[in-house]
């Protein structure tokens, strides 16, 4: 299965730039195409397309969402077992394992290291075997367990 591009495409190239799988190609100002073998269905193209030219795997047209409103992972450390599956699942590498132990315990903890790179695909949430990750709308100064929000940088775009 793969996302597809309709003739609404104006060839702006926004999807090409965000696609983590390098699955989209096309000349500027011409209709782009998606290589179905490479598409990982992360949906990032659909969220950036100003033309709603992207159809998801069910054939439903995607709607553009302001990047500041994209869902971000929130990790509940009391449930997290530090297995690193979320970090591996992330197609853009925005999650990382801490180099120091968590506050209560000796294990490291995964955190959103590069919030700006997060494409809100939710793979981390879906693949977490113990359901320790929720995808939620970022709130400024919100208290989460991730280091990035602790030092107050938040996810402003």
């Amino acid at each position, binding site marked *: 299965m793969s996302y597809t591009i309709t003739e609404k495409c104006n060839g702006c190239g926004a999807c090409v730039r965000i696609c983590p799988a390098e699955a989209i190609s096309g000349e500027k100002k011409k209709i782009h195409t998606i290589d179905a073998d490479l598409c990982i269905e992360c949906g990032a193209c659909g969220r950036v397309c100003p033309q709603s030219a992207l159809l998801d795997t069910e054939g439903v047209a995607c709607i553009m969402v302001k990047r500041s409103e994209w869902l971000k992972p929130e990790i509940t450390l009391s449930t997290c077992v530090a*297995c*690193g599956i979320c970090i591996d699942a992330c197609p853009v590498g925005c999650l990382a394992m801490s180099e120091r132990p968590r506050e209560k315990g000796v294990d490291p903890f995964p955190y959103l290291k590069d919030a700006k790179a997060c494409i809100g695909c939710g793979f981390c949430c*879906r693949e977490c*075997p113990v359901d320790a990750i929720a995808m939620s709308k970022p709130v400024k100064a919100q208290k989460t367990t991730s280091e990035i929000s602790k030092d107050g940088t938040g996810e402003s775009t």
Partner: protein
Amino acid sequence: MNKPYMGKILMVDLSNGTMTEETIPDSVYEQYLSGMGLGAYILYNRIPTGADPLGPENILGFCSGFLTGTGSFFSGRWTLVGKSPLTGGWGDANCGGTFSPAIKHCGYDAIFFKGISPKPVYLYVKNGKTTLKDAADIWGQDAVETEETLKKQYGPKAAVAVIGPAGEKVSLISGVCTDKGRIAARSGLGAVMGVKKLKAVVLDGVQRIVTHDPAAMKRLSKHCDKWAKFPMPLSLLPGSLIALVGTFLRLTTVLFPFDGLLYKTILKKWGTGGLNQLSIEWGDSPLKNWEGSNRDFPLKKSAKINPDIIKNAEIVKYHCYSCPMGCGGICATKGKYAHTHKPEYESMLALGGLCMNEDLDSLFYLNELLNRAGMDTISAGATAAFAIECYEKGIITKEDTGGLELKWGNTEAIVALIKKMIAREGIGDLLADGSKIAAAKIGKGSGEFTVHAGGQEPAMHDGRNDPGFNVHYSVEPTPGRHTLGAGLYYEMFQLWKRVKGLPRPSLLYMKGNKYKINKEKAQSSAACSKFMSLANGAGMCMFGIFIGIKRVPTFDWLNAATGWKFTPEEYMVIGERIQTLKQAFNVRHGIEPKSNFISSRAQGKVPQKEGANKGRFVDVEKLASGYWEQFGWDTTTGKPKEETLKKLGIK
């Protein structure tokens, strides 16, 4: 239907730089899974009979686990496969870290290399594009430096497997490193990579790994997590008291089947180093090149490697991909290197007790030094111990060692010797290919002091204490291996709870029963091998599956991931098939299975006069015969019978 495998492999011919993607039929996965199974299938069919392990015809494969990336736990191990230059037969080495899922994210279940590159290169795979790149700049760097250089260039998400200087110099005891010090060390396959002039494999893909029934996978994983977390009072004990468990096991005459939850507790708190003192006390650790006993390394000495001391150096725990337990750790060290992966029990005993070295700082240092060099700590320590015995017995002199006083426990000399081995300098050149080859070059009866099985130095578990180790050291297609079976392992796997017809140990038994040779022993050894072959196909971690087959539901994960409805017995046949194929590989390449029996010293042919294993002799010949019978291999030669190969569909 969604399947957890990618269905494709990449074959790289380093001689001419061609790269071919091949589709693998579903039936191969149904018979062999992927990981070591797929590796064995490809190598058995494609390496010509009698090929030189260091020649262009040998094939080196990086194989991802079948269950890797499926949301199952303990399933992040990959297997390096090739014809071993150390043993001349089937070779594989198993490693954790993060490399296993990276292979699948590139769209392959395995990546194979044949031929020899005219100049140093590395493979870079990014989103479906594969390139061989010039490695002139990184050739000569150690494993950690190389990884750092490549990650700087390709980003932290790239997974990197590299050889260090030991592999480059074709040391037959070298391996392949990932994650700054996780190493696929055994079988000497680093030398194959080195001779092929392949410095590294860099993988950066995003392909998804899917399963037939994700909800069932998650349900099973939660069940597993419950047991991985299961609290045990053992964890409240200080490290020094864990040693006394070993003393108790040595002195007691009545035993009970060992439950893996106990070992899990040790692993979770201390890592494998939790065994340091326990194993010495028990008689599990070989000491002084397998001549010594626990009396040579009493509690007063072993207190220096008390697990608590090692834990104190730990900054943070290290979890391999998909591991909820985290037996690893990142430690602070003194001296040149700031950090090292927490030294494993094997490394500490091989470089410590086996050489009678008591200096903990040197163990941390040597651990990092060898990881960076990409040299097997077990074989390096065992070869050093052999050299020390040669020196002590006057077979080699100070002149031969370049001035080193190679005496038992001389830390300084041991460190200097290991450095020479890595650099292949002076006597180090002689020792860099392991103890068997060194003894052949030294002569003068030194072969008497080498402890090896088919050329491979066995791990730090004494088969005179648990005869199961001696069975597996001797009969496995990869001889000298401690990660495939033992009496203790059989008890922890608890396979009888799921697989029909397997013997169930009694709740209490006399210790003497451990040393009896009977059909039950043969059945349990064979079951261990079959199950571990399956596990190595699935990419499962042995420490995980020690927790028990019902608690870590390997069979059920396999069914949920694929939609197959195989019974546990049918899965055991897959393991049996993989094991038999590896044995058939050995036979095809001229290995006489009997020639792989472990050295007589470790069998106790001259029994020890004191200590935990006093008076013990393990009759490997008899045990092997029973084991071979279980597999339908000839009971006198160990070669798979025609009808066995036919039954398993091996051509």
